[in-house]
């Protein structure tokens, strides 16, 4: 075990045992760190209450009649105490966001449609549905799903970090332990492979001609479809995710 981790583990043990000097030292050293992490998660300060509640759990406020049980007892010393605290805070923050998302009502079908020129939602009610277009988009999505299935685990994680979590190249690189240039090349390669795989599936498996394959992509560009969770969550525009810049990590949780 890393020597510094061992010192952290000893501090956690002392704090869990209720030793006041250790707790004072912990508050002095780690409270600013925890608040900085909370502010990084929510710049408006919405995560500070999570940090405060975390302190209470770490101290192990005794409930009525029960013995004091500190959260420190879960720290095993596999990382630094500071990183472990960030992980616990991230867990609580993400879980709270996910719980909030579940409680939000889903928008009705019309509200998911893009706004028209007059600020009204364009309705397709009057337009006769184009059966080929729906079919083409469906084929494209199915082919893309299969292509993603065939990807390597790291490629899928890299894609998810970049396209779903909206991490920057540098942040994705830190997560994947890669240089950002490597991340950029790998993302470009993966996207190129996916497109080739999708085109091949459309031609060979679905039996589409080259013109029909082109129509598939054209249809997809006009309508991302109801499966686009960004549109469903209401915080995404019709532009491509790559055109958007950094966003809060809570948008996809």
């Amino acid at each position, binding site marked *: 075990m890393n020597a510094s981790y061992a010192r952290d583990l000893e501090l956690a043990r002392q704090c869990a045992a209720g030793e006041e000097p250790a707790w004072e030292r912990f508050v002095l050293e780690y409270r600013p760190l925890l608040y*900085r992490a909370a502010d*990084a*998660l929510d710049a408006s300060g919405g995560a500070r209450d999570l940090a405060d509640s975390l302190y209470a759990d770490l101290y192990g406020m005794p409930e009525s009649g029960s013995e004091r049980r500190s959260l420190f007892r879960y720290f095993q010393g*596999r*990382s*630094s105490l500071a*990183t*472990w605290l*960030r*992980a*616990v*805070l*991230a*867990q609580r923050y*993400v*879980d709270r966001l*996910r719980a909030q998302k579940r409680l939000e009502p889903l928008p009705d079908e019309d509200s998911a449609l893009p706004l028209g020129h007059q600020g009204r939602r364009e309705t397709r009610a009057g337009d006769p549905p184009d059966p080929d277009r729906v079919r083409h988009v469906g084929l*494209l999505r199915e082919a*893309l*799903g299969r292509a*993603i299935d065939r990807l390597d*685990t790291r490629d*899928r*994680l890299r894609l*998810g*970090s970049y*396209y*779903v*979590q909206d991490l*920057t*190249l*540098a*942040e994705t690189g*830190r*997560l994947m*332990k890669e240089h*950002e240039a490597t991340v*950029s*090349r790998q*993302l*470009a390669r993966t*996207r190129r492979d996916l*497109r080739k795989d999708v085109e091949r599936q459309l031609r060979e498996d679905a039996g589409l001609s080259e013109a029909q394959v082109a129509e598939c*992509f*054209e249809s*997809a*560009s006009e309508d*991302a*479809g109801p*499966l*686009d*969770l*960004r549109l469903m969550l209401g915080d995404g525009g019709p532009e*491509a*995710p*790559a055109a958007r810049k*950094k966003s809060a*990590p809570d948008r*996809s*949780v």
Partner: protein
Amino acid sequence: MGVRKPLRPARNRRRIVLYDEPRVKEIKTDRDVPMDRLLAAALNARAGSATDGGCLDAETLAAWADEALDARERASAEAHAADCARCQALLAAMVKTRPPAAEARSWWRVPAFGWLIPVTVAATALVIWIAVPNRVPVQISDGGAQAVDQVTAPQAPAPRSAPLESAPLEDAKAQTPPGGSPQSQVAKELGRSVAPPSVDLRERRKEEALEKDAFRAEGAAAKALSEAVSVAPAAPSAGAAPAPAREPAPSQSADANTMRAAAPASARVSAFANAPEALVVSSNPSTRFRLLRGGNVQRSADAGATWRTETTGATDTLTAGASPSPSVCWLIGPSGTVLLSTDGRSWRRVAFPETVDLRSVAATDHENATVTAADGRVFVTTDGGRTWSRTPGL
């Protein structure tokens, strides 16, 4: 007018991603934009549907961030996170809450290694100073001695018992023969500089001052010699020290200068009266002879680095010698002792007409030599010592 072909794209189309570039910036085709949209949607749907539990706990998440997971644990965690929206969000939160890393600094910029730079520079300078001899000749503004001192010759290996500062006039003359030290003579003959081994400028200037003093003393010694030579033979006692130069007459000085000029440059006279040891440097300075107490001789063929003792057969300490070439050496001593070597190793006694102490010798080869006795008489041989004649007019 022909149709110009469109320019082909550059051979290497791969972009180099610079630091802090947040997103992939590639020229997208018409199919890339819908692909991006579909990809984001598909990944979202996929991640949202994969909720089979087994998410990363805080311990594993923290160990991932601190790179404390082993390869198997890491692969397992990546496999889960690749299809788990919650774990991807956790990992993203961990990345975003990561404290700013200290600026990456090159190892030599680390303060702990900062002292290495001046120490390395100083050590390098010291090594160069020690290893590379200073070959820059020093120009002396003294017009009289300029020709001699332009070549900063190393200090000749002086007799240990006769330091330059306290040497008598004759010693000074012996150590600094006409025209400068033997090394400077050779250097002049070779037309190139002979650098002293790593002496700093201040020491060299001190040496040059001493050398000039010796050069001036040489003139006085020559006068003394001429005085002694011109004096009528008065049968001095054996072993008597030469008469000190007092006030030589102009004519005597001229005679001495004439004699000195007559002596070939390749055969230098070395006289070490009362010196327990004397050094005879050949015309090739790498060959030199050291006269030991008791009549023996040491010879060096590597400029004094190593010496080999040779027996001459003489029992008295030899006083002077002349070596016109590395293989030829004339040695003289008390009581008319004259030795000659023509191979630099074996010595033969040369018959001398007088039993008189001899003081100096000059030679041009193994046949011609001029010997000056302590009483001032000068004897010349032109046949290797078989016959001697007194120099007419002296």
